């Protein structure tokens, strides 16, 4: 085919002008590189958020008292509702066939003290099942058992941040702290979890037995949250339905709206994934637009090239090239330029994404589909922006083109 015969020669001609070839494809390189980097960063962010959601527990369904709403990125209760009780959790565990475990919990921010150190900390009252349902691991010491829960013992398990704040990082096991005015014995320390998707420190908390918290600390008879573990990931939605029916019945709601909110991990994952995806898509598209600018670079260089190589065009016509041969040649050259730029851009973007990851700035997940699309799009841009110069070259009259030099 004429095309392939000429390709080698085109490569040779383009390669002979290294600097210009480099400059002409810079825009494409940057554009494709940016797309790959941004999408990889977005995928990294998505992975991070999803990991955090998974960290929250396995097959988790969360029941909150009252209607909640997401305000400034965090889920907040809009009014205090006192209808959710610890009994509800027991009923869910007993009566819902899709549910494996249900752990009631309630929390409040309270002043805590060890000797002269003070800190305001989120104090969570929870039953022992909660550790399992919420994937809370004990790093040192121990958790509390159902007996201690029932007996409303004053034992506390601290998050790493609390240990840092009150004990300067020293092992607090066996020491006594005060929560509000009530003395507690520290029996264990939780493994660190880091920040959640919204940047809230998940390690800044103290867990105490639920009964202790309700009676001795908060003086309430209701709870805020029930953490439920479904028997399998497939049963998350069924479990949610069962829980809703049961609670509506227990709370005698009839035609009134729910006085609780249920979320399950699967829908949470879907929502978060959608959010990060649309964000990534948005920023990626902006980067994609810079590819268009890269196309203009190619347009400019190809126009100069046609002017400069007018004599060559004339000669090729004289030795038998048809107009269409000239057109194809220049289209091929601009496509080739863009392809080289796209390839370098992909390598650069992947390299940058790996570097960002390795240097620890941001976790990235290389997106090969984005790389492929970026590359294909750059070739497309090269050909589209090559059309005008190619038509211009093909339209030259051979005798005038020959005379041009």
């Amino acid at each position, binding site marked *: 085919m*004429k095309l392939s*015969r*000429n390709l080698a*020669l085109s490569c*040779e*001609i383009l390669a*002979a*002008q290294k600097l210009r070839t480099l400059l002409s494809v810079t825009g494409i390189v940057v554009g494709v590189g940016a797309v790959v980097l941004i999408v990889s960063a977005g995928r990294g962010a998505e992975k991070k958020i999803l990991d955090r959601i998974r960290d929250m527990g396995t097959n988790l369904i969360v029941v909150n008292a009252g209607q909640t709403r997401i305000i400034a990125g965090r889920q907040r209760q809009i009014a205090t509702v006192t209808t959710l009780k610890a009994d509800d959790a027991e009923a869910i565990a007993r009566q819902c066939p899709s549910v494996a475990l249900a752990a009631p919990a309630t929390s409040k921010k309270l002043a805590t003290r060890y000797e002269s150190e003070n800190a305001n900390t989120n104090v969570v009252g929870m039953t022992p099942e909660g550790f399992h349902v919420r994937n809370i691991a004990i790093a040192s010491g121990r958790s509390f058992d159902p007996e201690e829960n029932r007996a409303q013992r004053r034992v506390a398990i601290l998050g790493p941040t609390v240990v840092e704040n009150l004990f300067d990082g020293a092992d607090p096991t066996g020491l006594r702290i005060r929560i509000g005015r009530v003395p507690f014995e520290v029996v264990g320390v939780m493994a660190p979890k880091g920040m959640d998707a919204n940047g809230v420190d998940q390690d800044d908390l103290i867990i105490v037995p639920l009964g202790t918290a309700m009676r001795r600390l908060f003086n309430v008879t209701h709870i805020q949250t029930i953490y439920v573990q479904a028997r399998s990931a497939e049963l998350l939605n069924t479990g949610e339905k069962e829980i809703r029916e049961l609670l509506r019945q227990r709370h005698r709601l009839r035609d009134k709206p729910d006085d609780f909110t249920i979320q399950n991990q699967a829908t949470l994952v879907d929502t978060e994934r959608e959010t990060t995806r649309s964000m990534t898509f948005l920023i990626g598209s902006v980067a994609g637009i810079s590819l268009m600018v890269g196309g203009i670079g190619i347009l400019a260089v190809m126009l100069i090239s046609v002017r400069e190589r007018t*004599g*060559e065009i*004339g*000669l*090729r*016509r*004289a*030795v*038998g*090239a*048809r*107009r*269409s*041969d000239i057109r194809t040649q220049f289209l091929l050259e601009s496509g080739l330029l863009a392809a080289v730029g796209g390839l370098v851009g992909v390598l650069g973007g992947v390299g940058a994404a790996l570097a960002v990851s390795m240097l620890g700035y941001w976790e990235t997940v290389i997106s090969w589909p984005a790389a492929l699309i970026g590359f294909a799009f750059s070739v497309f841009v090269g050909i589209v922006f090559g059309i005008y110069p190619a038509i211009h070259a093909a339209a030259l*009259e*051979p*005798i005038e083109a*020959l005379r041009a*030099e």
Partner: protein
Amino acid sequence: MIELKTIEKTYGSGDTATPVLKGISFRIQAGEYVALMGASGTGKSTLMNIVGCLDKPTGGQYQLDGADAVTLDDNALSHLRNQKIGFVFQQFHLLERTTALKNVMLPLIYSEPYPEDAEQRAEKVLTAVGLNDRMYYRPGELSGGQQQRVAIARALITNPQIILADEPTGNLDSKSGLEILAIFKRLHRDGHTIIIVTHDEEVAEHADRVIVLKDGKIEQDRRVAQPRDAEKEVDERIGREDAE
């Protein structure tokens, strides 16, 4: 082979119309060696472009090897140029960024079917013009005479019947020019039809026939009784240089 009948070429139209060729008729047989002469502005370049199928006349008829070159479309003319005509230009028109070999192979890119032995053919024609040791040189690394020989090799690669040379010695010193003319002489002896466009009497002396243009018309069409033999002159010159 080549037959022109009352060829006219007028640039522009209406009041600004400028006639350049005003009824040119001649016939060139296969194997002739013709010099097309005339001062600049007499239309000899325009005539050459028409003969070479690079341009179309505005009037008259042109038969090239039985084909009606006036009515053929652009693609057919491209094909005709590729197969029947080899061009040699004053400015050589070589691609600067590639080797002599690739330059010579260029016309083959556009011929169908593409010969499998393209590279061997290019080597052969380059050897025929005495450049067997310069095949991988770029034009910038060659002398003017060598560059013109690359251009001749390129004109020969498709084995065309007609070699059309436009002031082929115009940019060369007399020695290199003579060497180029010697190559043309040999090609003529091998049966090629040679048409050289020139304003130089000395160059025209090498042809069998001289057609002189003036003001867009043929002023003279004569046979040369004793054409100079460039091949012999080059040999003699080498002999002289060896003697010195």
